[in-house]
């Protein structure tokens, strides 16, 4: 089956319906493996067991940014290629991405308290992630304010693409500015610099989070398609009723 078949909402719903149970099971399985590995990983000699917040904090940061990246691709789909499901994908991804970003901020804050002595500090990395979170909330507000989904889609698409500039800023903020936050240690030139006993659980958890995102996203897209169906049915009902021809 070609990718183009997914463009049809009905076919997408059918596929999603069949795929979702599998997706849930695989996600749960990978989470089980990842959480076990995280539990079994050695404590940090400085931070003790607190370092294990990293196994939730770092993947949620990655997924928060991944969400906006996905929305940006979907935005291009809406504006450039006019793909029928592009705005559904964008709208469905926003709350999920926002949730992961929020999780990143909260876990980071809880981690920072014992590490740096404060829940929050206005350094470049934290601030740019906070900005990302605020932009997510802004896009979600935009989707909710405009009643007609297809009109909201264009405005949201433009906003998303403009906001995508924040992603490289987040990534490189720890390098460009002198920050309290730890510099990059996984995705950088020369390969990761973390020891494998920490790296492997981290990557497994990242995979688990990614699968969770995909699962939730597919389910959310299905819901959005159904929501639009309901709206169309209501419009038809109004038009079919007496007195509607004016």
């Amino acid at each position, binding site marked *: 089956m070609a990718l183009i078949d997914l463009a049809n909402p009905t076919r997408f719903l059918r596929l999603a319906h069949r795929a979702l149970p599998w997706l849930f099971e695989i996600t749960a399985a990978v989470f089980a493996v990842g959480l076990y590995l995280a539990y079994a990983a050695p404590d940090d000699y400085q931070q003790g067991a607190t370092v294990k917040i990293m196994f939730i904090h770092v993947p949620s940061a990655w997924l928060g940014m991944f969400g906006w990246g996905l929305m940006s691709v979907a935005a291009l789909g809406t504006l450039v290629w006019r793909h029928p499901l592009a705005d559904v994908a964008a709208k469905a991804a926003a709350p999920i991405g926002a949730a992961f970003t929020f999780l990143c901020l909260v876990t980071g*804050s809880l981690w920072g308290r014992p590490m740096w002595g*404060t*829940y*929050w*500090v*206005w*350094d470049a990395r934290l*601030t740019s992630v*906070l*900005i990302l979170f*605020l932009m997510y*909330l*802004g896009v*979600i*507000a935009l989707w*909710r*304010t405009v009643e007609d989904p297809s009109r909201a889609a264009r405005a949201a698409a433009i906003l998303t693409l403009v906001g995508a500039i924040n992603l490289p800023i987040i990534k490189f903020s720890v390098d460009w500015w002198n920050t309290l936050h730890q510099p990059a240690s996984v995705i950088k030139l020369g390969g990761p610099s973390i020891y494998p006993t920490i790296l492997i659980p981290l990557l497994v958890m990242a995979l688990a989070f990614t699968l969770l995102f995909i699962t939730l996203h597919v389910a959310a897209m299905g819901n959005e398609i159904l929501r639009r169906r309901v709206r169309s049915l209501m419009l038809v009902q109004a038009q079919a009723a007496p007195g509607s021809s004016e």
Partner: protein
Amino acid sequence: MSSLLALFIRDVRLAMRVGGGGGIGVLFFLIVTALMPFAIGPDLALLGRIGPAILWLGALLASLLTLDRLFAVDHEDGSLDLMLMGETPLELAVAAKAAAHWITTGLPLVIATPLLGLFMNLGGQASGAVALTLLAGTPALTFIGLIGAALSVALRRGGLLLAVLVLPLTVPVLIFGVAASNAAIVGPLPFGTPFTILCALTLVSLVVGIFAAAAALRQGME
């Protein structure tokens, strides 16, 4: 009385259904507050000292800017005409709309304050004090802003002109709100003194705001 309750419930419902309730007000509050450290710099000690002031300014702007369209929407679709023809006095109808606005916009601001206090490096007690002063003071902001909202319908003019006219009226509330917060955090003034004055200001603005707004709306109906 059930007509006032119906108006209150309608306005709360409308606020919830369009754009997600008080969400947009809280989001604005969040963004304005987050904007301050960019301008002031990340000095945490400084932010902690001026934190209450920043939070109060953010809440003030969020309250007033969302009030702008309170009456304009009803004026544009003809609802205001019908409200003037109801058996309920216009003053009470205006009060019901203001109450609905506070519940859906002002109260969420108060609830969001402890979280924002975290960003401003305010401790738990300090954040709580600021939240309490906002709880007492945001109704005052709503009722004063009501006058601006009514004038913008009467004058057929919105935006900054009205903000310019109404903002000076909110200065006493701002002064006592920040004074009460600082009194709770650093002293030496006891918290009670500015706080009770703040509450008095709210009660006065309740009465003045309602009558002034109703008068402005009637004037503008021609």
